[in-house]
């Protein structure tokens, strides 16, 4: 059971994932054709990765009148069959994350399929803004421990610095 984890606090907004995705899937560099999207909120200095969460109880599957959307039992990915898609955009409207993207030029939907269990976007993310977990059950525990560790060690402040001679700065 794989899942993509989007860590907005680690995303720097470099959008390499968008380009890697469109190149891997379409052979071109075009953010408009990427399955993943980074929303850059410049005025607050935030970069938020948005992609398919592959929900267990997926509203997009329920909403699709032609059964163009279905789950791949091997990868857990919700995949789109373009042959069945009639372009009604119900899935796009109902998705709570805005993860399904419609391209006007091609009249086709772009939908993450987890690259058959080896997501290209993750390979190009150098900060950990997007991660892929096979054993998703482990994830909440690890994440919570990470947060506690950060809190206890006050991590951002203890980063060493060569120019000032190292050591904590407080």
């Amino acid at each position, binding site marked *: 059971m794989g899942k993509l984890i989007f860590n907005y606090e*680690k995303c720097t907004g470099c959008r*390499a994932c968008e380009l890697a995705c469109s190149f891997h899937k379409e*052979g071109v560099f*075009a953010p408009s054709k990427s399955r993943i999207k980074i929303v*850059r909120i*410049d005025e607050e*200095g935030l970069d938020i990765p948005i992609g398919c969460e592959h929900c267990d109880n997926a509203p997009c599957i329920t909403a699709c009148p032609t059964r163009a959307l279905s789950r791949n039992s091997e990868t857990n990915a919700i995949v789109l069959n373009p042959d069945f898609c009639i372009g009604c955009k119900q899935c796009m409207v109902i998705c709570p994350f805005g993860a399904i993207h419609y391209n006007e*030029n091609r009249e086709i939907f772009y939908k993450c399929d987890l690259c058959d269990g080896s997501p290209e976007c993750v390979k190009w993310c150098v900060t950990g803004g997007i991660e892929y977990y096979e054993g998703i059950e482990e994830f909440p525990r690890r994440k919570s421990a990470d947060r506690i560790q950060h809190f206890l060690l006050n991590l951002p402040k203890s*980063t060493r*610095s060569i120019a000032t001679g190292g050591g904590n700065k407080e």
Partner: protein
Amino acid sequence: MTFDYGGYAGKTLRIDLTKGKIIKETQSKPKLEKYLGGRGVDAKILFDELKPNINPLHSDNVLCISTGPITGLLGPTTGRINVATKSPLTDIYGNSNAGSDWGPELKYAGYDNIIIKGRAPKPVYLCIDDEHVELKDAAHLWGEGVFETTLTLQEEQRGYDTKVAAIGPAAENGVLFCSIIFNLWDAAGRTGTGTVMASKNLKAITVSGSGELRVADPERYLEIVRDGWLGVLNDPGFLMGEHQALGTPICVNWGNAQGWLPTRNFRESTFEGADSISGEEFRDKYSTRSSPIPGGRACMSCPNRCKRFGRIESGKYAGTRGSIEFEGIAAFGSKCGVSDLEAVFHAYTLSNDYGMDCVSCGNAIATFMELVEEGVLEDIDKLGLRFGNADAMVEMVHRIANKQDKLGALGALGAYKAALKIGKNAVDYTTSVKGIDTIACDPRVAKGFGFTYAISSRGSDHLRTHVVFEMIRMPPEIGKELFGSEGACDLMSYDGKVRMVLWHENLAAITDSIGSCRFMHASYYAQYPVPELLGKLRNKKEVNSIKYHDWISAATGMKIDYKKLLEIGNRIVNIERALNTRFGMRRKDDRLPKKFSKPIPKGPGKGQRFPKKQLEKMLDEYYTSREWDLKTGLIKKSELIKLDMKDVLDDLDKKKLVR
């Protein structure tokens, strides 16, 4: 895709603002083969289309905005955008470069570059939405700050998917050093490009693109790009993590430790308050995210994320927020003797919102502070202009932007022109070369930087070479191998520095022309052949590196090897030189300000100076290598023929501007 070369979008947008005409042109292939794109192509366009003697604020001035062949193609640091024009600040070649995702967006919309001429009868903005390009009324935006303008335009269009380049009210008021600001925080800062844009009644350019870009050889391209990314990620400097952790503000404490942090308008080169305006301080107090990279934000496809976003939560300057960078901190901080980071941060974002260049603005204020202290200038407006007075500094930012009162109006001219107007010996206190003030590194300590200031095509500037090579304790063997002397790795040595500058200058011209970032070949040394040499030294079997020549070849389909790459770099340096020759620049202008022949009073650089005699000696060596005339600094005919620049030669020859 109809264009023969991969990588490029293939089209140029030509805007005639006077007539309101928009023309889409197919790119000229021979021009791209010779000058690649970005800075190179812009300089050639200016050479071909700009009347040399016009006033920079005349409607005939040409404003070029360009991307390069690898912009927006997943390579590391491919989010740069180049701007070129005749500068109102220096009256010579003006050029600046910004990083964001505006440039890539322009290419996804289908255009490599924009050439803007004329003057709109009333304020307009240029709206680019794929093939729909139009000039729209900007009456509601005129007079508004950069932030308000950007956010309004985003709201009116496609929200966060609309990328905005805007100018601020200071540019409209005619302050000579205004910037064009991309996506709120990223400035094509120097040489007054924003002032030129304002003189054309052009308030902003918005872009959104849904198109696609193809490369000539996709499989090989991906391999080369992956190698490039790994080259950066495995660079010893990158692995150290300092620059990633703090962004460029790392340089405050670093420069202070090495003794090149300009302090009180270059009176000294170490600052007792460095700690309190440092990158560490900014991270600890104002960064907005608690992650391994607090507040770090990146340009398109960049692993380095050198921008730092922060916010002041309480106190006098509560609400101040924005991206911050080293040059601005030094300009308002150590150069003005101000150790209050909140005031510095505030002045910095104010300057951005007004649309002014932080560096020139801070330098103007620092120069005035010194002139007042030395009794050359009277503090007519009773601001208490003294080094260290943060309130006076912040007040001056407002006054300069609005040209308010006597000092504000003076400051709006930039330090150099203001000093000329003040008269007496005021010019001796400026740090300007070719009319533009010096950035935040003391050239008396960093000799390679110093020499760069003297020869830079846009005046006192480090980015034409960015010879960080001398600062980072590179193994001396590499200096010997590449530049013929171990001295190249020694900050305060003159040995090997000319050759070092030459290599960096040629490569920097390439970086700016293809749309990549300086940090990849100079700062981090991920560009061939440095990683290979380092690998050999350390007996590493596998080495990753950026190879611009392979990279451009695979993207475009041109055939470029390392030797040809450096030749193109050389050609770009020469076209800029040709342009400046027309603007009257000669050997006498390749100089350093008087200030730098005086020794530094204290710190690690104590006693260091940059003597005129030494500079002349280095210029001789530099001109000889470049094949420029030793006496005048004019380019030699033989060099232009060798570089296949016959058209440039013919033009210069007619005006007797070659030797």
